[in-house]
């Protein structure tokens, strides 16, 4: 589904990604872990071209999306993204946050979009918040709404960029729970996170990134029980 070939990204003179090759199949739940500054967020943001790769190619559903002729906006409609800081639109109500893109991109009629939004809100138990503004919600509620906002576009892949890192500890659970549900429904997911428990439980594959490369990857069982790379051993000893 997603193929990454020799991806490199340089910010000014700082090389953040140093040649990444990766293949992500439909239905996989890939969890990326690693120390901060390892390039994992940059890698994720390259997948939907929020960062423009310096070198290399990314293919999505048989299309080279790094080709400048590719319509980025169409591509992004199929890739939902969830951010660390939620990035809900504070000037719009919860309902408008969810329906904005489907309506403005003319993918759904206003009525369809609203029905869909209410269905999604009901699913996360927040349909009574439809008419409120994001600033009146807790972090966990905001992040769950950010997730359904992305789902409202019916994406084929969901990208999560440290979705629980900005949350108070007692709100992490509700967000992870929703992500688990998505995973169980067969959504293809790429998740950058520090939640090792989530990686162990949900991932089909765990990648360890450090210094701009994927140092090691394995099934979650092997990854945590039997790490080979000394850097990964060191990392795991610190976080587990």
């Amino acid at each position, binding site marked *: 589904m997603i193929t990454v070939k020799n991806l490199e990204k340089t910010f000014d003179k700082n090389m953040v990604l140093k040649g990444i090759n990766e293949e992500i199949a439909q239905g996989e739940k890939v969890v990326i872990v690693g120390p901060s500054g390892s390039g994992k967020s940059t890698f994720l943001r390259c997948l*939907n071209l*929020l960062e423009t790769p310096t070198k290399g190619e990314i293919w999505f559903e048989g299309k080279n999306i790094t080709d400048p002729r590719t319509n980025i*906006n*169409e*591509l*992004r*409609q199929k*890739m*939902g*993204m969830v*951010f660390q*800081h939620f*990035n*809900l*639109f*504070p*000037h*719009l109500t919860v309902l408008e946050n969810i329906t*904005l*893109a489907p309506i*403005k*991109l003319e993918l759904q009629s206003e009525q369809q979009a609203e029905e869909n939004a209410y269905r999604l809100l009901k699913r996360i138990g927040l349909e009574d918040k439809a008419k409120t*503004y994001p*600033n*009146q919600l807790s972090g966990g509620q905001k992040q769950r709404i*950010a997730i359904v*906002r*992305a789902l409202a*576009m019916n994406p084929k892949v969901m990208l999560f960029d440290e979705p629980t890192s900005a949350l108070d500890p007692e709100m992490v659970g509700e967000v992870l729970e929703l992500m688990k549900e998505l995973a169980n429904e067969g959504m293809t997911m790429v998740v950058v996170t520090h939640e090792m428990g989530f990686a162990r439980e949900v991932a089909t594959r765990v990648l360890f990134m450090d210094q701009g490369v994927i140092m090691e990857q394995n099934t979650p069982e092997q990854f945590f029980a039997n790490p080979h790379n000394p850097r990964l051993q060191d990392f795991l000893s610190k976080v587990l």
Partner: protein
Amino acid sequence: MSYILDQLYRTLIVDKRYMLLLEGLKNTLIIASCATAIGVAIGLLVAIVKVTAQNNRKWYMVVLDKICSFYVTVIRGTPVVVQLLIMNGSIMAAVNAELLVAILTFGINSGAYVAEIIRAGIMAVDKGQAEAGRSLGLTQSMTMKLIVLPQAVKNILPALGNEFIALLKETSVAGYIAIRDLTKAGDNIFSRVVNSTPLYIVAIIYLVLVMGLSYLLKLFERRLAKSDHR
């Protein structure tokens, strides 16, 4: 008391002098409101060019960016009276409509200041907002229009209000090109009655206009703040 009444009578009623003030007020309001509209339009355009050019370094964006920077530098670097005289005496010398010259001059002048205000307001919107919009598949212009600008307005409004107020008062130099604006009207009456009363009246009219404008802006700001709390 009767002295004051007498002065008011001589300033306003004799020879229907209040008509002069009304005419001046009308011109001032026309110039200020039209120039404000032009200023906001130019300012918005220049600001969007400058913000877009930060990420988009295609050659035409670089050229547009340079042109906009030049415009802002020149307009902010020269006095508005000089701009007015140049417009009237040279650039638009063939045009025999001083009011139009004044509107364009003040509009172009204000645009440079408004551009910087709007640019700063856009920059103050969290980068994640635009990223969230783009990640949903919205185009750059949709993201700007639907997500960034509505939030920027809140940052912009107080400074923009100041600019409107400054512009309204700046139009008082329109008399330099033989327009009878409010100030000029007061001055005309002053030269006939040889007494400062008309000037005080003019000052009070400006004051009332500015206070009214401030009040409207405050109302508007309060309406925009509705998503902040409740």
